[in-house]
């Protein structure tokens, strides 16, 4: 109990990184760590609602999922999976070097993580813009056409890309240019660290365009771009739908009213143009509602992650991490891995439906 031993009451040496209400570095670290784990718990439950919606519709209306998933390209999804897994590796390496107090390496690996995140967003932008072009939208607006919309904006026409892609890319383009200018300005003005930071941010914004270009090239090669009017996946759909219709006849019967009648006469023309929208099962749009909610919320978390990583990058450039103070890198890392974890499940759930 109470003792008058003054030693006991000496404050621990309070490094400037220890907040005043903590006794020591370890207590501070443990608190932060538990805090971030608990925050991840809230994230899991936040997403859980969407998982409920998914499970529910998939189990009650499998026919919707059978028919709709072919609009998602599993190779693009797979590419994004690999990108995210790689970013998780670099993040884990960043945490490792923060624990060793090697700030330059932390900055390096965090930068790679950010670039991967941006690539991911770039690929998603391609996926989204192509779907929007073809009217593949949430249920109330779902209005699929087999042809892509003709670009109307100047950039769209010039580059032969979707208008939606032009809109989506506006902010990354502004960021890219802005950060480039800032990087040069700061470097010339002698603010070296700020210059490097802005340079890294510009590289990250560039990552977005890396993703966009890569995915667009892939789409063009597989004939799914605006240039080619017949997307590869719809052809795939058609091939598969024929036999899906057979073993599904029972399940689809009540809803898929239009299923049989049109098939005979439309068959020839559709094979080259994608699926006949009149053959869609009822409520097919709800798949895309769920798809957009899940991937949209996830993409939002990726963007949040980039912002958090930028903060870590900045502090790494200032050289703030040491072996008894690396908590923030660890916490942001955990968040980043969770975003990856969620994608690990979203990928097979949305892209790999058999």
């Amino acid at each position, binding site marked *: *109990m*109470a003792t*008058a031993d*003054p*030693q*006991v*009451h*000496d*404050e621990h040496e*309070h490094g*400037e990184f220890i*907040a*005043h*209400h*903590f006794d020591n570095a370890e*207590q501070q670290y*443990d*608190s932060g760590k*538990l*805090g971030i784990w*608990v*925050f991840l*718990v*809230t*994230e*899991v*439950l*936040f*997403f*859980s*609602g*969407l998982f*409920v*919606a998914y499970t*529910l519709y998939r189990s009650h*209306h499998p026919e919707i999922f059978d028919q709709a998933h072919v609009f998602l390209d599993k190779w693009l999804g797979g590419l994004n999976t690999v990108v995210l897994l790689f970013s998780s590796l670099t993040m884990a390496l960043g945490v490792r070097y923060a624990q060793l107090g090697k700030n330059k390496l932390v900055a390096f690996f965090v930068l790679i993580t950010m670039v991967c995140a941006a690539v991911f967003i770039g690929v998603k932008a391609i996926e989204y813009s192509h779907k929007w072009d073809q009217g593949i939208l*949430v*249920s*109330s*607006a779902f209005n699929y056409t087999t042809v892509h919309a003709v670009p109307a904006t100047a950039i769209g026409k010039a580059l032969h890309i979707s208008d939606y892609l032009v809109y989506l890319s506006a902010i990354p383009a502004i960021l890219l240019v802005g950060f480039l200018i800032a990087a040069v300005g700061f470097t010339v003005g002698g603010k070296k660290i700020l210059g490097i930071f802005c340079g890294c941010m510009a590289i990250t914004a560039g990552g977005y365009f890396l993703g966009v270009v890569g995915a667009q090239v892939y789409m063009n090669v597989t004939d799914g771009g605006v240039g080619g009017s017949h997307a590869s996946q719809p052809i795939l759909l058609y091939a598969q739908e024929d036999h899906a219709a057979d073993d599904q006849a029972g399940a689809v019967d009540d809803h898929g009213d239009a299923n049989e009648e049109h098939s005979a006469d439309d068959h020839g023309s559709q094979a080259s143009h994608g699926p006949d929208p009149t053959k869609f099962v*009822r*409520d097919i*749009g*709800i798949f895309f*509602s*769920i798809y*957009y*909610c899940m991937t949209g*919320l996830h993409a939002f978390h990726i963007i949040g992650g980039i912002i958090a990583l930028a903060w870590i990058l900045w502090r790494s450039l200032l050289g703030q991490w040491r072996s008894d103070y690396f908590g923030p890198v660890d916490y942001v890392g955990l968040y980043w891995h969770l975003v990856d974890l969620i994608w690990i499940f979203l990928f097979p759930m949305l892209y790999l439906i058999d």
Partner: protein
Amino acid sequence: MGTTIKATPEIFGHAENNFFNASSGWKSWAFTLDHKRIGIMYLIGVTTALFLAGVFALVLRSHLWIANSEMLTPAMYNQMFTLHGAVMVFAFIIPSIPAALGNMVLPMMLGAKDVAFPRLNLMSFYLWVIGTGCLLYAILAGYGLDTGWTFYTPYSIETESGVIYATAGAFVLGFSSIFTGINFLVTVNTMRLPGQGWFKLPLFIWSLYATAIIQILATPVLGITLLLLISERLMSIGIFDPRYGGDPVLFQHFFWFYSHPAVYIMILPAMGVISELIAVYSQKRIFGYSFIAFSSVAIALLGFLVWGHHLFTSGQSLVVTLIFSAITFSVAIPSAVKVFNWLATMYKGSILLATPMCYALSFIFLFGIGGLTGLFLGALSTDIHLHDTYFVVAHFHFVMVGGTLTALLGGLFHWWPKMFGRMYNDMLGRVGCFLVFTGFNLTFFPQFVMGSRGMPRRYATYDPEYQIFHQWSTIGAFLLGIGILLAFAVLVYAAFKGPKVGGNPFKAASLEWQSSSPPDFHNFLHKPVMTDPYDFDAMVYDEDLDTYIHREFADPAKVPPRVEPIHH
């Protein structure tokens, strides 16, 4: 540093230098990271919400004075009860005890200088401000809101009113609540005093801990629910909309997966307050400590398994309904465990009927009725009859007002001298409590009767047969309003003009009383010493300070040395 001194007023008595005057200027409040100041700002905030929503309630009750009243149009009536419910639930009752009282005392009960994440704490408060602002914007901008606080689809998708603003507000308020939960959970885990094991914590801490578990596990689901509803309204995604194949009852599952646990967010902290009050004002070790502690956690966990009892009449399948009904009954067990333990604590205690104790006793009575009527509603056959009648309205007001609000008032009276270093007028406090108790019963007891006779809830007009009950209820509501006003008047007067008191006027034994009143900016000027929170015999009266101190400190040689706070 570290020289032995005698127990001085700065350490245990009435401190002239305290967290109120540690710094000044509006910025020292607006950007404060001090949990005590944040707690006080929260208190002002939630009380404002209480009065606002209380005014809505009085308007409603006035309207219902006669059967076919034309005071409000039916549309206005709908908006009025929605705003009353939404503001009361999301902006007042959920943050009330944890964020206002909990912020004040939780770190001090642990002997800590602050919560684990002070900035998150401040952010939680500002999110509360923003969220409440959004909720109110729905009225001020003339949109109104007429869905009821439950926002059920498909009506909430179709109505023209400001559902988006209101749900955005509730969404933000949800995050405010989550941040409080994270903060408290981590603080209790990592910032206890050395030697302060889990079973040496005051029971208020246990209940706040259990509350934090619910806030963390349930509130995110509210977030996603409201986000989906907002998307539904903005672009008709169809997940809850049968016109596109969506499932409107799914919304009810989503909503109650949060909102049933949320009723325990409201009641658990109240139970924690009552555990403290009963022990202190009976001057007796709390009976069945570990039962009360574990029943909080049991309630928190079981609370996740019963949400379907709100869907008994929504077309829920029979099997699921049966399961939910059975589990609903089991939740009553841990609640009853607490009540029995409180009663056993009072048995042969030296009961002091001070204002806080009066509130504690009302709580036991009112919560008892509220909880027991919950069982009627949890039973399938009776619920079919009682669902959506005034019986349900009376049930939840007994637990939310009779339970939570009563406990909040009791807690405020108990900790007020600690927060402000001044004493209130005990007689007037008791009068206020009496008015609250009588007014409350007069308001809501008739609602049980008319509810069981078939008076449906949320109706602007009614059959004249029920008029007499409505009139009692309206009279009671005004009485209740006067009682609450009086209670707050007594408190506010005391904060400025009351006689000064020392650190521990009530002979309480938990750690927050081991400081001066009002506490220092750093909470304790000495290194707090772990004591038993329910060992009242260890507290002795110190004549110099005119307050109680732990007997360890009565001997000057044992007084812990004063620690100079470190400033960065």
